[in-house]
């Protein structure tokens, strides 16, 4: 992540603000565990499916920095699997841990207690996880049309309901681009700034004011402080 983000390494925004959406505590530990013990081939299964259709509207692509979800519980299908026959017992044998989390999709809206308790859904009132996440293939998001999209294209998901903001984002007015004004630029995803589950933009601490009064309003020194 750091290296891909080299471009903004000079800025504090990387350390704070937009980029600290996920508390890096338990998440990181989990990810590490999941990645270490996830059986080989898991990620590939997902890759082979190629769920993105080449529709006309989908054709327009934008380069984005890696979605934050890749630093979190990804791949989701380490646990969420359509077919769990044999997997859990085998994993439990291998790791003694992940197996009990392996599960089939459960479309029933409910309060989650065994996992994802940190997710506080505070978007539109009627919203449920599976309005956005694909039921069967949890590594993907799903549009209203049924089309599956990868997390890199989550802007299309948000764009379905936030049309005018999405239009502004596409022409660079909403959100932010980094890199080169002339040449390769990356578009920050909506989810780099807004937590999709609770999207209201959070307040930030301001940085220190200038030391007063080194210079006055007119740029003229009022008196030297030393």
């Amino acid at each position, binding site marked *: 992540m750091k290296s891909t983000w080299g471009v903004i390494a000079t800025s504090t*925004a990387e350390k*704070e603000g937009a980029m600290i959406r996920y508390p890096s505590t338990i998440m990181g530990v989990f990810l590490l565990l999941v990645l270490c013990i996830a059986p080989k081939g898991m990620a590939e299964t997902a890759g082979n499916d190629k769920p993105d259709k080449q529709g006309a509207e989908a054709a327009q692509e934008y380069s984005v920095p890696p979605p934050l979800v890749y630093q979190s519980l990804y791949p989701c299908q380490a646990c969420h699997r359509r077919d769990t026959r044999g997997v859990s017992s085998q994993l439990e044998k291998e790791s003694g841990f992940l197996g009990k989390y392996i599960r089939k999709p459960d479309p029933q809206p409910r309060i989650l207690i065994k996992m994802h308790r940190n997710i506080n859904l505070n978007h539109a009132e009627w919203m449920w996880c599976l309005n956005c996440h694909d039921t069967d293939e949890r590594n993907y998001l799903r549009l209203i049309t049924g089309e599956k999209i990868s997390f890199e294209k989550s802007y299309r998901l948000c764009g379905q309901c936030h049309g005018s903001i999405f239009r502004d984002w596409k022409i660079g007015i909403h959100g932010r681009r980094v890199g080169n004004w*002339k*040449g390769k*630029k990356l578009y920050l995803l909506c989810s780099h700034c807004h937590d999709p589950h609770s999207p209201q933009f959070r307040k930030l601490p*301001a*940085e220190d004011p200038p030391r007063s009064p080194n210079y006055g309003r007119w740029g003229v020194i009022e008196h030297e402080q030393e």
Partner: protein
Amino acid sequence: MDRRKFIKGAVSSLAVLALSGCDQTIEEFLQNHFLEMSKDDMEAARNRLIKQYREKFGMDFKLGMEPALPEVLYSYGLDLSRCIGCRRCVSACVQENNQSRKPQIEWIRVLRMKNGSLDLEESEHYYEAEMVPKEGYYTIPIQCQQCENPPCVKVCPTKATWQEPDGIVVVDYNWCIGCRYCMAACPYWARRFNFAEPSIPKDEINPNIHYLGNRPRMRGVVEKCTFCIQRTRKGRYPACVEACPVGARKFGNILDPESEISKVIETKRVFRLKAELNTQPRFYYFFSI
């Protein structure tokens, strides 16, 4: 120009006298105005500066002298409906552009105003570092507006400040005599003066510099925002644009109809500060909602 001719003529008799007690070298004193330098002059100036900086800071700088890119005219947009006044742009600018930490120099000033107020004179820029945005207020960051019709340039007696073909108003610190007429002429309070020797902790120095931009300055010269000339002439975004957590800062080539800034002007209501003065800033403020 006149200064140069005069000095050249009087070199043998006067220069040495004039220089005694001053930390300039003779080469530096005789250096041509940047706009008149030949390739060789530039190379010589570059090597001299790099050497001088190595002695002073104990590190190697990458000194660029890139000219304006063809068919490029920069403009800048700032979305006042998004700015929250967090000052991340200020600190990114200080770091990127080697602004003196002590005495403190900051090219960007963030003014906070009461909702409904439009009077810049009633703004506050020393407001405390609390959680932002703060209800009841809005903020306007101000930096050099890179005017198309810059009053600061007109008043400079030594032509040490001028407008480049890409629209950036620059200062040649070697030609600035510190008279500060430009500061008095600027209606946006955008220029800063090094009233004492600038200082920066060594590990915070940015060694990627441009002659007309963020190279280390000396006492007695004026400096200001250059749209990060050392970055933008290489195609990159200015530091403040990338640092803004709310994405309020937009930058690009106004001659390119697809650039963000062209789109802002095309689709949003924009305005410029103190438009009645006819300075024609290349810096646009706008409301996206």
